[in-house]
Every structure is written in structure tokens, then in C-alpha cells.
């Protein structure tokens, strides 16, 4: 199973993601943003970080980089694409995922562990995963998911809401909304469920010494689902 992690100037979770993917059996390759094409892959990951220093809007410059055309082609032909944190912002700026990510409601950079509830229904990402709620890490300034009412309805109707911020027991309430996102949205799928963008970082949670290893559930399950 081959995966590719794309490195943009300012990516900083690329190597963590590389470690996480390899831990669970992926043959991962690192791909530079200025390469003309993605090498043959079963999965592409756009990692977290601050591509291009968040200039203009988070992810907007990376979304126009040379490699992106082949990422869009790959995604449109059904290939699996994950965007984590800045990767999610980049996917939104490419138009592969709807809505946008605004500055956090209270203007603070949030860096902490949160609980998230997974939509396990249909996607290769979460199907058969052992837990409903994972403890993952968030670290962002612009993670406040926003979209129009019509867009939200369409997300709900198509079962595209992938991850919600919640309490330890899966309570999706305002109390557990860290950044002001509509309906506690932490991550979404595209309509076909082959693309996922999410603010939480599973790759930061793959070892007990990193305060939680719930990210293991995600990567282990993903590898099994793809095999």
C-alpha cells in the first residue's frame, strides 16, 4: 500500500505523518510541492503546518502549487486524499471540499487535546474502526468551519460530516466546541467520501508518550480498510 505525503514550504507535520503511515505498514514517499506529478499512490496526505506562512489565506497559495493539479486529478478519479489541519485548509482552497475555515471564534491559537466523534458509516477512513470517540490533538488559528445554510444542509443530507468535536462520551454540544465551528464540525468528506479534511491531528497521537495513542486506531484501521 503506497502513500504520498506532500511537502510545502512551511509544512511541519509532514515527517510525523510519514512516521505514522510507516508504523502501520504504508510504503510512504515524500513528494515536493514543485514536482510535476504524484508518484503512483493509493493514498495522498496533505500534512499540517503553515504552508507559505499562511499568506493571503491559510492554504490559498499551496492550493495553486504545481503538484496540486495531479492531486485534484487523483481525487476526482476516486483516489483517497486526506488533508490534516493546514492540509484541510488547502483542500478547501482547491475547491475539493466545500465551505471555509475562519479564524477561531476567540482569536486564539488553540493547541490542546480534544475528543472527536467519528462518522463511521460509509467511508474507508473510519469504517470498522474500534472506537466511536478518539482523543486527538488540535493546533490551529483558523479552524472555525463555516458554510452557508444550504451547504450545511447538503453536507448533512449526503452524510458528509466526518468528525465532530465532542465530550469524552461523545456529547456533541457547544460546551465542547473549541473554535466556533458550525455544529462542532471538525472534519468533512466530499460527496464520494474519498476525500477527508479534518483539523485534528491523528499523526500526533500514535504513541503513549505523546499523551494519547488514539491516532493508532485511525491509521491501523485505514491500512486494513485499504488492504
Amino acid at each position: 500500500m503506497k502513500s504520498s505525503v506532500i511537502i510545502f514550504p512551511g509544512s511541519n507535520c509532514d515527517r510525523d505523518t510519514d512516521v505514522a503511515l510507516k508504523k502501520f505498514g504504508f510504503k510512504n514517499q515524500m513528494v515536493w510541492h514543485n514536482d510535476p506529478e504524484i508518484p503512483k499512490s493509493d493514498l495522498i496526505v496533505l500534512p499540517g503546518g503553515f504552508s507559505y506562512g499562511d499568506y493571503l489565506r491559510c492554504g490559498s497559495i499551496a492550493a495553486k502549487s504545481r503538484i496540486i493539479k495531479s492531486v485534484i486529478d487523483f481525487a476526482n478519479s476516486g483516489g483517497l486524499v486526506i488533508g490534516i489541519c493546514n492540509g484541510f485548509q488547502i483542500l478547501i482552497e482547491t475547491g475539493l471540499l466545500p465551505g471555509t475555515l475562519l479564524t477561531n471564534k476567540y482569536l486564539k491559537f488553540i493547541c490542546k487535546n480534544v475528543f472527536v466523534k467519528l462518522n463511521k458509516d460509509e467511508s474507508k477512513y473510519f469504517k470498522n474502526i474500534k472506537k466511536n470517540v478518539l482523543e486527538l490533538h488540535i493546533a490551529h488559528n483558523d479552524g472555525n468551519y463555516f458554510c452557508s445554510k444550504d451547504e450545511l444542509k447538503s453536507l448533512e443530507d449526503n452524510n458528509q460530516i466526518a468528525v465532530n468535536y465532542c465530550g469524552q462520551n461523545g456529547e456533541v454540544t457547544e460546551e465542547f466546541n473549541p473554535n466556533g465551528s458550525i455544529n462542532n464540525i471538525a472534519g468533512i468528506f466530499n460527496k464520494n467520501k474519498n476525500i477527508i479534511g479534518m483539523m485534528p491531528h491523528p499523526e500526533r497521537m500514535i504513541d503513549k508518550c505523546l499523551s494519547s495513542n488514539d491516532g493508532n486506531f485511525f491509521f491501523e484501521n485505514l491500512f486494513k480498510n485499504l488492504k
Partner: protein
Amino acid sequence: MKVKVIVTLKEGVLDPQGKAIQQTLNGMNFSDVKQVRQGKYFDIEVNIEDEKNAKSKVEEMCKKLLANLVIEDYKIL
């Protein structure tokens, strides 16, 4: 020629920075300040002399890169 563009958040989109600026101004005794919306300003120099052509090119840039049309409006000055 030079083309100027202003990008602002659409009405109804939360602008926490604008809100913080407004509250700070109020706190500085500018009590008349009712609302502040923060935006971005671009000064773009293009190798096109015809104003109409230049502006239509810049409009394309606004749609493709400079503004996020989900939440922002642009104005070409």
C-alpha cells in the same frame, strides 16, 4: 497600469478581528464606533495599458485567488 483591489468579508460573516478592533476603539473613548469590518487591500501593477482589459484580468485574479468567494466580496477600484 496599477489596479487597486479591496477584499472584505461578506455581511453576516463573523469578523472577530473587526470586532476586537471595534471594542478597542470603544475602549479608547471612540464611543461613536458602531462596527468595524477588517479587509485586505491589493495594489496590482500589470503590463496592460488598457484600463478595461486590465480590470477584467484583475477580476479574474480576484475570483481565482485573491478572494474566497464563500466568505469574501471584492471591489476593484
